[in-house]
């Protein structure tokens, strides 16, 4: 700034002309040889998640938008925004089936924002990409970096993609010291004072590493396959900072206490097969999961998708999932567990680490209208698209109770609308 002020007006004009010339050359080099490759995709989404229960009344509105611009045939630049607007109610203390006290659910609400951006470079049969995302809400912040590399070979019938993601998350908690006994730690009652200098608040870190390898293979003109192997490491504060668990018969409760480390692995196999007689693409997927908390999971998915009209297609899908509970899971920790045993060292009020099964079914209608060749829809768009989807998810909690009572918020409904355009 100071240098610019010292220049005389003629030099400034010369500098401006030179900058403009460089900018023109750069833009020309970027755009002119690849004018036909210029494409921008804009997509927006809103989903509404609801648990029609008398107690939790959980509702999450999940709007999002994504933009991808390809100024050249080899470069893609993307940006995205997502939000979670959450309202509902939950019990602050998880009491077991032996408890005499029934706690009331208390209301909560929060909004989470995630902004992201990145780029991809495609050369011949290889694609490299890098992305960054930053998420924030009143009691949680997250940053993640992801890099991926993929390549096609065997006449583009085989594609291998490797990716690595690193997350740096921060969660707000009460200001307990690491040396405090877990049984003396208390849960948050509100997010007031989080990420400030408040004496009664602290920030705990969570480090996340995710590795993934994916293999796509075309086997026949009607059959393709995808195999995905994922490994993830989590380290840090893996509890819910608001949740207490009753750990003594007298009714004493302490902040939920999970192990600080968790290694997770999943292997999934998916197939898509086009059944010519019924003109339908049938999808089948199976996934096995295991982690160091000794949770084993299995997932089975089935789908069918076909065209109702050349511009409208219908997808129907079903899914079954089952998992075992964590090694330290118990619905009631007041029974005098040995202090050195898994249920004496750790305690959880999280239904996600309890044994459960879940069933879901849904459908999606998707409309797509593309211009033929170089023609444009309404003279502007290369493609217009819109979709409406509905899914119902029913969870069967095998052991989890609120003071011995089965939760009534085990049915979830998800409505999603998306719309997009390519220019």
């Amino acid at each position: 700034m100071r240098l610019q002020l010292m220049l005389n007006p003629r030099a400034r004009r010369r500098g401006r002309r030179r900058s403009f010339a460089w900018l023109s050359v750069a833009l020309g080099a970027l755009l002119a040889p690849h004018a036909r490759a210029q494409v921008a995709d804009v997509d927006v989404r809103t989903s509404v998640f609801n648990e029609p229960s008398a107690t939790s009344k959980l509702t999450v509105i999940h709007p999002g938008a994504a933009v991808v611009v390809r100024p050249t045939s080899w470069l893609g630049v993307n940006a995205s925004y997502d939000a979670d607007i959450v309202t509902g109610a939950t019990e602050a203390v998880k009491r077991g089936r032996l408890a005499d006290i029934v706690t009331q659910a208390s209301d909560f609400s929060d909004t989470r924002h995630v902004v992201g951006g990145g780029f991809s470079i495609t050369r011949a049969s290889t694609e490299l990409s890098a992305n960054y995302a930053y998420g924030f809400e009143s009691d949680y912040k997250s940053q993640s970096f992801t890099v991926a590399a993929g390549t096609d070979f065997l006449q583009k019938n085989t594609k291998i993609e490797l990716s690595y993601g690193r997350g740096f998350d921060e969660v707000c908690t009460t200001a307990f010291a690491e040396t405090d006994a877990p049984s003396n730690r208390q849960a948050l009652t509100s997010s007031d004072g989080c990420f400030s200098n408040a004496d009664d608040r602290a920030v705990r870190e969570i480090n996340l590493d995710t590795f993934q390898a994916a293999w796509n293979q075309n086997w026949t003109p009607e059959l393709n396959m995808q195999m995905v192997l994922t490994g993830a490491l989590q380290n840090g504060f893996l509890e819910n900072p608001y949740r207490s668990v009753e750990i003594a018969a007298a009714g004493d409760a302490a902040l939920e206490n999970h192990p600080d480390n968790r290694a997770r692995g999943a292997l999934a196999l998916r197939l898509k097969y086009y059944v010519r007689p019924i003109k339908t693409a049938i999808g089948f997927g199976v996934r096995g999961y295991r982690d160091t908390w000794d949770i084993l999971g299995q997932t089975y998915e089935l789908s069918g998708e076909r065209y109702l009209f050349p511009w409208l297609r219908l997808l129907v899908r079903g899914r079954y999932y089952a998992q075992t509970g964590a090694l330290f899971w118990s619905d009631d920790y007041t029974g005098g567990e040995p202090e050195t045993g898994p249920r004496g060292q750790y305690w959880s009020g999280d239904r996600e680490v309890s044994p459960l099964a879940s069933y879901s079914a849904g459908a999606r209608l998707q409309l797509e209208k593309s211009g033929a060749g170089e023609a444009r829809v309404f003279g502007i768009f290369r493609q217009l698209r819109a979709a409406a989807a509905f899914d119902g998810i029913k969870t069967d909690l095998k052991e989890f109770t609120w003071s011995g009572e089965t939760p009534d918020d085990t049915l979830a409904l998800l409505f999603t609308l998306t719309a997009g355009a390519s220019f």
Partner: protein
Amino acid sequence: MEHHLVGKVVKGMAASLLLALGTSCVTVRPEQKAILADPTMQFESNPLEESARQHVIENREAAYGGGSVQGGGCGCN
């Protein structure tokens, strides 16, 4: 029981992998890829919609990973 079932799943997938490796010289010619290129044959044909669904599922279950990735299908992009 659950451990036994998961073991079967893993063995099944391992067998599929071996079968796949053993027949990796299978080739679909470019002119045969019309169906594979169709959106109905993609594993993730509406990423925004599928990410919303995945978001809900991940918040209700312990399992994580193995999600579908874009790029399945004709491999002609």
